[in-house]
């Protein structure tokens, strides 16, 4: 099936309105039926009514968070796939998300989060950074797709075990049962505070990733050629990794590990951007925002009391996709 690439203008002329529409739809979804129009009017007139509270204090932060996290995951997935030359790379699969979750869990449950707003996302960043470092150590110079996946499995297992351990020793009696949140992810009951905490790190991370767009394009010609085109490969690799860990670390620290978005979205978008890694970055960001918002809507419609975690939906879609990709690239795997 040959999907034709689209000019940037056309692509975003389609994607952005879709995002807006999905967002409006998401604002209309919830356990209570409210009049959106009244809610918005009340807010503009600075009236505190049921509608304005529900709309602006509960639903809007949740939807915004879903969008920003979806964008982060899509962007990070595209970045990792470009950097590692690996179609199966994404923050969840290679263990970055679990590392971030571990960092966040340690900061949150051991009383450090309250001292300063940035400590929680910073914990996520550090956890993610450690995970990435171990991955790169394990994989070394190997271009093998398999070795990356295996390293990711190892990191994920160790990370998950450490998360369980950290929760076990935490003071709070609720900690142990909250492991589901950290491993599957959710944006339910998250407020504007969580958005404010995570946003700075996410935006900085996005900036760093987008800055490396040209570099990723040049990298398709090989490392030496990229060097000859004026890129400091070592430095830019570091910038890219930092961008991924900062944004994913922040996202995971407020919403847990939402898997597979970074895998699926770049693959869906690649044909539309003519496989160009640089264009793929922004396209994956926007598409990721749409995807996660849709998933969150699905979660709210499918479970009556909002108990289902977001990661369940993304896994239900993403895991089969992952299997399909493995089968498709069987001949490419060494």
């Amino acid at each position, binding site marked *: 099936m040959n999907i034709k690439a689209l000019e940037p203008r056309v692509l975003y002329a389609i994607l952005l309105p879709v995002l807006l529409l999905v967002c409006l739809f998401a604002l209309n979804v919830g356990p209570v039926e409210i009049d959106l129009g009244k809610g918005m009017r009340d807010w503009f007139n600075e009236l*505190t009514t*049921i509608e304005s*509270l529900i709309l602006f204090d509960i639903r809007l932060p949740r939807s915004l968070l879903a969008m920003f996290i979806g964008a982060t995951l899509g962007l990070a997935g595209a970045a990792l796939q470009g950097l590692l030359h690996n179609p199966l790379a994404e923050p969840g699969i290679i263990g970055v998300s679990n590392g971030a979750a571990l960092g966040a869990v340690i900061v949150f449950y051991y009383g450090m989060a309250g001292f300063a707003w940035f400590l929680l996302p910073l914990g996520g960043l550090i956890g993610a950074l450690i995970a990435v470092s171990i991955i790169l150590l394990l994989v070394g110079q190997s271009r093998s797709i398999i070795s990356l996946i295996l390293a990711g499995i190892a990191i994920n297992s160790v990370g998950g075990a450490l998360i369980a351990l950290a929760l076990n020793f935490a003071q*709070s009696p609720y900690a142990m049962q*909250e492991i589901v949140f950290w491993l599957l992810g959710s944006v339910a009951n998250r407020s504007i*505070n969580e958005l404010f905490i995570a946003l700075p790190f996410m935006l900085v991370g996005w900036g760093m990733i987008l800055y490396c767009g040209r570099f990723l394009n040049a990298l398709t010609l090989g490392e030496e050629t990229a060097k000859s085109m004026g890129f400091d490969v070592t430095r830019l690799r570091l910038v890219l990794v930092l961008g991924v860990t900062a944004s994913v670390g922040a996202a995971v620290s407020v919403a847990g590990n939402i898997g597979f978005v970074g895998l699926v979205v770049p693959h869906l978008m690649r044909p539309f951007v003519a496989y160009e890694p640089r264009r793929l970055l922004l396209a994956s960001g926007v598409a990721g925002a749409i995807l996660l918002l849709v998933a969150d809507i699905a979660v709210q419609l499918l479970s009556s*009391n909002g108990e289902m975690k977001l990661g369940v939906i993304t896994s239900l879609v993403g895991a089969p996709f992952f299997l399909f990709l493995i089968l498709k690239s069987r001949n490419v795997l060494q």
Partner: protein
Amino acid sequence: MRVKINKDFMKRFYLFFTVLMLLSAPLVAAEKPRRIVSIGLCTDQLLLILAEREQIASVSVWALDENMSYMIDAVGDLPLNNSSVEEIIKYQPDLVVASEYAAWDTAKFLRQLGYKVKQIPLAHSIADIYSLLRQFGEWTGNQQRAESVIAQMQSELTEIQQRYAGRPEKTVIVYSPNGFTIGANTLENDLFAHAGYINLAASMGIEGFKPIALETLIAADPDVLQIDRNLSRPDSLATAYVGHPVLDKLIEHREYLDIPTRLRICAGPMITEAIEKMAQRR
């Protein structure tokens, strides 16, 4: 002659009396346990309120929890236990008291080891509290004390209702960690009723302790909110539920009930204080 008859009679009397005492000794001992161990917060309270101090061998560590224990000042230097079987056996109790709804594994184990274990059920109403107090009084041999506590409660309640009868009824909803609310057929619900409140959760058909969506809570538009925030518990996602900023906004425009947890979490005479506080805020 008179002295002889008296001595004879007295001897027989003393003999009879001694035999009577000896025979009734086990009955007396059975009626009043001497080494009672409580392994839960609510039985701690009951024990400290109803029993004599010499009867208590140990109470649970929860008895010293500032937020949860009403009788915290009465604990003094009583030994504490962590509700583990090994610790309990150490005290060689002749009676172990616990709640029906917690530590049933421990209770079962202790029974298998031959210890006498009595468990109090969950109280769903104030009437339940009265029967609970009576039962507890019977187990610990303090029936009279139990009756007097019940009598005092009843008179206090009547007095409270009379004092605040003029005030209007108000609607209320409870919100606790993990987004739980308290519905019909619970003790708290009965407390609200006695304090002159309508529990909107019960009106919605919620029974027992169930989660409620934040949106539903806001849409219900209660006059008064009771948010369980004062927990000495450290951070967790569960406590983040009650920390949601929208609740702050809601409180700005509503009354906020802040009844200390220790007054309403256990069945006992302290609930009258809770009801008084609630009624005051109407």
